[in-house]
């Protein structure tokens, strides 16, 4: 890529970044300009991608099929036959546009109903796949199989047979951790009962404990997401203060 173009591209990117960042200070005309520019470009891009990346490969190509013609022998081979039935999707999709019609707007619910129908049917299909293994995974054993040591011994450098033996055992420290796991999941589940009143000290206590444990989990998620977000910000700073400044000084040597 040639240098001038690269510099122009960088500069525009830097201005746009600053434009959007300006909303951190307050909403100004400067921000408004870049916001609308962004929305316009994004809408235009979606219209391009609509055909290029979705309708053509997902619909048109599959509907019409494709043929390869050999350069030499001129014999054509069918790569993929055309599935004519996809043609029905066009009228059905177009019905969605009747949402603006006063008289026939009910027809727009047909494509919407189909989309929602597929989604709903899938819920029945995927429930077990998604949660079955997790239900089993929550049934952790809590009775240690050995009391030779409180924690799992350090195995590096041991004979493989001994390592395998240790790996197959449940040590007390793990058993305690597993018990905490089971208590946590049961307490947190109890927080999500809606249809009956929680009475009595035990149930109320479990409910509160469940809420605290949930908050603890949320805190952990919060903490572990922070790094990725800060890196993005640091990279933007590097984009402006390192890359753009470098390229600018390359383009205008002696300028500053």
């Amino acid at each position, binding site marked *: 890529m040639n240098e001038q173009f690269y510099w122009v591209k960088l500069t525009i990117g830097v201005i746009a970044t600053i434009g959007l960042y300006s909303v951190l200070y307050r909403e100004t005309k400067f921000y408004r300009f870049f916001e609308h520019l962004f*929305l316009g470009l994004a809408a235009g891009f979606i219209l391009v991608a609509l055909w290029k990346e979705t309708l053509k490969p997902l619909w048109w190509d599959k509907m019409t099929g494709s043929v390869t013609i050999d350069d030499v022998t001129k014999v054509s081979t069918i790569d993929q036959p055309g599935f004519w039935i996809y043609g029905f999707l066009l009228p059905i999709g177009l019905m969605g546009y009747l949402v603006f019609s006063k008289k026939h707007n009910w027809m727009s619910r047909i494509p919407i109903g189909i989309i929602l129908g597929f989604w709903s049917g899938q819920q029945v299909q995927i*429930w077990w796949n998604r949660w079955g293994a997790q239900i089993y995974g929550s049934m952790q054993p809590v009775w240690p199989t050995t009391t030779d040591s409180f924690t799992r011994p350090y195995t590096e450098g041991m004979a493989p047979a001994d390592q395998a033996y240790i790996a197959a055992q449940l040590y007390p420290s793990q058993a305690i951790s597993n018990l905490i796991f089971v208590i946590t999941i049961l307490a947190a589940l109890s927080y999500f009962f809606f249809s009956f009143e929680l009475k009595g000290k035990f149930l109320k206590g479990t409910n509160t404990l469940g809420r605290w444990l949930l908050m603890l989990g949320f805190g952990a998620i919060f903490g572990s997401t922070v790094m990725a977000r800060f890196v993005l910000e640091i990279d933007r700073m590097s984009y402006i203060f390192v890359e753009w400044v470098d390229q600018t000084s390359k383009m205008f040597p002696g300028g500053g």
Partner: protein
Amino acid sequence: MQYLDTGKYHVLFTLLLVFFILFNIRRAKGKKDMFVRRIPGLNAIDDAIGRATEMGRPVLMVPGIGELNAISVQALNIFAQVTKTAAQFGTPIRLCCANAAVFAVAQETIRDVYQAQGQIERYDVDSVRFISERQFAFAAGVSGMIHREQCAATFFLGEFFAESLIFAETANAVGAIQIAGSTQTVQTPFFIAACDYVLIGDEFYAASAFLTREPVLVGSLIGQDWAKFVVVFMIFCGFITNSMERHQVTDMKRVDNDATADVEAFSEMVPVEPWANGKPVLKRRADTWLFRQFNPFITKEQVTVDRPLEPEPEPTTATGGGS
């Protein structure tokens, strides 16, 4: 076969859950005043709208950036209730969508609400807007709108991803009352940190039952609770039986073979080798009864099926295209 190759257990279990939900919906028919636990965020809806009305500023609603599915539909169900109150007070509303299909549904829903309230003259077509399908363009557009219109109350309910915090903090900056909830667990902590009221987990799904007290919805909620009881019960029994079984001595162990080029995955039992230190061999995780229920034991014979073959299709050549 699906219910043979991955076990009958899960089909039965799923059908049990389906039965619980449908049975309770049926049972609840015609009943009134059924108990639903208080959900803090939802009591605040009226206050939030009241405040927006006093200040003469709009109420903003965002049904997430997900596709059209039950999550966005549920968000719109809650928004329909919000709009009902707003229509009574004559408070202006803004509903921003990031998906065209959701936009179509939202358009109709909101119009229906105004119509049902007899306030159709107050309905503004442009109050329901499509902003952008692109995640961060949508974020930029909505933040701009929050700032410009100084929204007094904001509702962020649905599938939110990284943009959740952009919305929540922007709305906080203009002093809006915020009620939020995301089915994306990873985003919930950000809402908790930045918003006034947060619907956690399936409080989001329980919300419409709580707001409308419709028998169908409350019934379904009771069914969900039954299902949760079953899960609690299973985990409770499971951790006890699993703990006991891990102490049983065994001389066979289960091996699960991966799929290869010519055979599907299958399981077999092989004798175990005794430990070198002479201690008894105890059952491992994969040898327990429960593990077998969740990971059915499929023998090699079961996965080997012989069917006659269709003759090799002739190489297909197009007749018209070549010339």
